[in-house]
């Protein structure tokens, strides 16, 4: 970081102004071009229409399904992977979900599972999270969804174990070798900009449908955080320690096992936490390729518009997310504490207590294999149907009472904002829109971002989905603008007041652990299936991360700058707009980057609830064989949009960081930014 003094806010404002005018000019020119050339060269493609590329992909699909049993690549490679993953998943499925013999009860019934996971939580974490785990897992039974929850749990567990087996070695390798890091980092960046949705169709093509493919999709989605944080932990080990160990004559292997890995342990456990959360999120979405579990209950409920059932299943997912998050967080704290101070006496007490607990677990497992009441959660104790009908009734009442309000809000915003903006994007000739996007990329992002964007746009045209891509882009931009407005307002309040920060942060943390699916439910209930619903869900989904980054940026503005402004008699409003916001510009740009990625992934999931465009193409591609190729192409187009938006905003962030030494700490790529779910 350079040592030049911070520029004064005034010169900053004047420096930004010409660029702003330039962008306004571009938009005016765009509007004119749209007026003159409306409907020409729009590259539109009706929803049943396909291009030769899509047809070719359909043929690939048919070819794969016909040759799957004879082609060696499939027989040995893909079926081999599928078989191995299936075998591991099978172990956990037999343990927790069901076996194929007799009554098909799992090896460990509900009572045994609750006792076992509680004990594990106590062993890796502390008593508080153990209690939370016991309550949470019992809650699945009380919600009437114990079997489904165990499916989700078993698949998540399998995916997390495989992610660690693959991710930790790769992370160590990337941490030790600069060259490996240079290879791995861009791949991870790329994987983390992919919305979870787009993995599914290609994976179903290679690995068929069912639990093993769901696990494979989940591993691909959930592995990046643990790789990143393992590498981070290895690299962050102080060089002096490494040298000291070297001077003792340790070889590389000894150095890794005795110093680097123990030092990186904390970072690895933080990575594990993020991997677990990503895995849970993905396992629920994998319901679309026939992964059983809570996700399927949500999908079914969405399909029958049963908000009550969707709520109950969503609640179970939330409970599981909270339990897994707290347990892995407690485990990472524990990793930190036990490394520092722990007396022998305390340790011995703990071991004795855990040993005693283990006896209880053995007893519970035995009971759960011997008595039916302990094996299968008694239906009589379930409040699921009751809760579902209460929520369903309440929703129906709200829908009835607010129908005029919600309908007007939805129609008003759709007609006033969404439709005109979409018309502008899809009605203008494609080269005009492309030129506008590239000009803006050049102004805010720079030359490299512009080149990447040009490539992305060219490929979007090549896969034949320009019009749908523009609709999705439009929805994404609208949702991002709203998200940023919310994020800046709330973020500023949070950044300026530690009290607000204190009570808001846990809420945001909790909101960030929710799988994407859960966000659709309340808005589907309120607004019915529409693009508006998808946009609102995306705004709510993306807001927490944006608020947090903005608040961090505001909080990081040096106290002297704020005091200086206040001493010159600036009002609170002036301090915010003239000092804090400009100095936090890098954070705000970074927040925009994350906001766009989160929003894009949610807008796409919104294809399930009337969101249309690329998200719909992906959904339709899953379900209609004649649209398979188009769905696959839509997945590619979503990825391209994601890369483009990411590149433009990321290079804008980097420019800000280098230009604005006043911001003390901008989060750079080494910081573990959670992936968009």
């Amino acid at each position, binding site marked *: 970081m350079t040592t030049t003094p911070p520029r004064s806010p005034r010169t900053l404002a004047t420096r930004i102004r010409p660029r702003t005018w330039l962008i306004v000019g571009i938009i005016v020119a765009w509007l004119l071009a749209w007026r003159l050339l409306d409907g020409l060269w729009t590259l539109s493609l*009706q*929803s*049943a*229409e396909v291009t030769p590329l899509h047809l070719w992909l359909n043929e690939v699909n*048919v070819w794969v*399904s*016909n040759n*799957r049993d004879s082609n060696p690549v499939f027989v040995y490679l893909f079926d081999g992977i599928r078989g191995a993953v299936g075998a591991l998943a099978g172990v956990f499925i037999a343990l927790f979900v069901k*076996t*194929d*013999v*007799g*009554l*098909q*009860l799992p*090896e460990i019934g509900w009572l045994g599972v609750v006792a076992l996971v509680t004990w594990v939580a106590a062993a890796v974490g502390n008593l508080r999270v153990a209690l939370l785990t016991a309550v949470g897992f019992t809650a699945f039974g009380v919600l009437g969804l114990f079997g489904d929850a165990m499916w989700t749990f078993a698949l998540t567990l399998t995916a997390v174990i495989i992610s660690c087996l693959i991710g930790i070695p790769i992370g160590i390798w990337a941490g030790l070798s600069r060259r490996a890091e240079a290879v791995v980092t861009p791949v991870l960046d790329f994987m983390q900009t992919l919305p979870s949705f787009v993995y599914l169709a290609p994976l179903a093509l290679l690995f*068929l*449908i069912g639990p093993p493919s769901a696990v494979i999709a989940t591993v691909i989605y959930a592995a990046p955080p643990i790789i990143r944080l393992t590498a981070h932990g290895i690299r962050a080990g102080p060089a002096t320690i490494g040298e000291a*160990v070297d001077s*003792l*004559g340790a070889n590389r292997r*000894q150095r890794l096992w*005795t110093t680097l890995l123990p030092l990186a342990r904390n970072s690895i456990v933080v990575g594990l936490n993020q991997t677990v959360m990503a895995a849970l999120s993905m396992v629920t979405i994998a319901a679309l390729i*026939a992964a*059983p579990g809570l996700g399927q209950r949500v*999908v*079914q409920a969405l*399909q*029958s*518009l*049963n908000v009550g059932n969707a709520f109950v299943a969503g609640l179970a997912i939330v409970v599981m997310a909270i339990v897994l998050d707290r347990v892995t967080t407690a485990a990472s704290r524990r990793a930190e504490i036990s490394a520092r101070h722990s007396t022998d006496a305390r340790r011995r007490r703990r*071991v004795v207590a855990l*040993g005693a607990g*283990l006896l209880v677990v*053995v007893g519970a*497992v*035995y009971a759960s*294999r*011997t008595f*039916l009441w302990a094996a299968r959660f008694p239906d009589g104790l379930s409040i699921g149907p009751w809760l579902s009908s209460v929520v369903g009734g309440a929703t129906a009442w709200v829908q009835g009472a607010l129908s005029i309000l919600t309908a007007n809000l*939805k*129609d008003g915003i*759709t*007609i006033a904002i969404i*439709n005109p903006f979409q*018309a502008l994007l899809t009605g203008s000739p494609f080269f005009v829109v492309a030129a506008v996007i590239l000009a803006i990329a050049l102004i805010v992002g720079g030359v490299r971002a512009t080149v990447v964007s040009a490539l992305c746009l060219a490929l979007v045209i090549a896969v034949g989905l320009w019009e749908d891509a523009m609709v999705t882009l439009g929805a994404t931009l609208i949702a991002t603008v709203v998200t940023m407005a919310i994020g800046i307002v709330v973020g500023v309040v949070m950044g300026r007041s530690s009290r607000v920060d204190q009570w808001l942060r846990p809420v945001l943390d909790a909101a960030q652990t929710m799988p994407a699916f859960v966000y659709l439910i309340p808005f589907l209930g309120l607004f019915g*299936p*529409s*693009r508006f619903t998808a946009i609102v869900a995306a705004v709510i989904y993306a807001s927490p991360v944006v608020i947090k980054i903005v608040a961090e940026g505001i909080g990081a503005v040096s106290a002297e700058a704020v005091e200086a402004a206040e001493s010159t008699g600036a009002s609170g409003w002036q301090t915010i707009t003239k000092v804090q916001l400009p100095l936090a510009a890098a954070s705000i740009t970074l927040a925009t980057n994350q906001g766009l990625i989160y929003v894009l992934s949610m807008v796409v999931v919104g294809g*399930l*609830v*009337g969101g249309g465009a690329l998200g*719909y193409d992906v*959904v*339709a591609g*899953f*379900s*209609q*064989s*004649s649209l398979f190729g188009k769905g696959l192409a839509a997945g590619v187009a979503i990825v391209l949009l994601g890369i483009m938006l990411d590149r433009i905003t990321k290079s804008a962030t980097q420019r800000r960081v280098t230009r604005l030494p006043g911001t003390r700490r901008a989060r750079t790529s080494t910081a573990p930014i959670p992936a968009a779910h």
Partner: protein
Amino acid sequence: MSPQLTPAPHRRRRLIGGAATIAAFALLASGCSSSLNTADAGSSDESACGTVNLAMNDWVGYTADAAVYTAVAEKQLGCTVNQLSITEQVAWQGFANGTVDLIIENWGHDDLAKTYITDQKVAVDAGPTGNVGHIGWYVPPWLAAEHPDILDWNNLNTYASEFTTSESGDQGQLLDGDPSFVTNDAALVTNLALDYTVIYSGSEAALIQAFRAAEENKTWLLGYFYEPQWFLSEVALEKVALPTFTEGCDADAAKIACDYPDYTLNKIMSKTLSASGSPAATLANNFSWTNDDQNLVAKYIAEDGMTPEAAADKWIADNQDVVDSWIK
């Protein structure tokens, strides 16, 4: 090796702890070898029938068929039925790897039948369900009464402006269901030069809700719908006549400009199940009932709020003679 590099004391203790844990788990696994499963495995019926993986597509008519099949197979034949939520075309893929054994109500899908029945030989046609399906465009009864000429597709453009919504912009809205349902609507709109755009409501439930609201509030609605369907007895939707279906007019999906054919709904079974000689396969082959039967069970589920199991039990109790003819 220097002393500093031997495992730290707490590390050694952790190793011991780990070993103890593993030992405990081994104890746990071996000591509790008795299980309700093995205790029960002796009963003979179940081994004779085995497990059927039944695809569950998401319209209520299908749920009705599946619920009755499941109830008969489980309660009268002692089979185990795994119900697997899956969309209709994806379900076919499941025949290849044993994920799916049975689709109990199939609508056409000649292309999939060619791939999985003719080419790959992993599935077989298990005969008609007895239901005949119709797909088409429907309007609420009040609209058909007030503007009878709307029931001819030639007049649809005249009324297009009445059907506009915030989702469809300045074109008329043609409301479709789940993207996975059999539909030619987008192609039809293009090829018949209609001033409409297809909007997907996302599900059967959303379609029903929309039609019900349209009839109640006398609002304009043109939508995709189908028979057999219990909702038609609640609101008698009227079908819009599209250009008559002729053999082969739907050969090219993108160029379709004719009505939907009549679908003889059938059951598709995996080769494995079919060859197993299991009573579940016999039941699947013989399962057959009328549109009225299906509508009745579907109505129990969708309108009367019964669970599919309860609805199936009720119908079976009233129609045991029909069931007997399936499992003879």
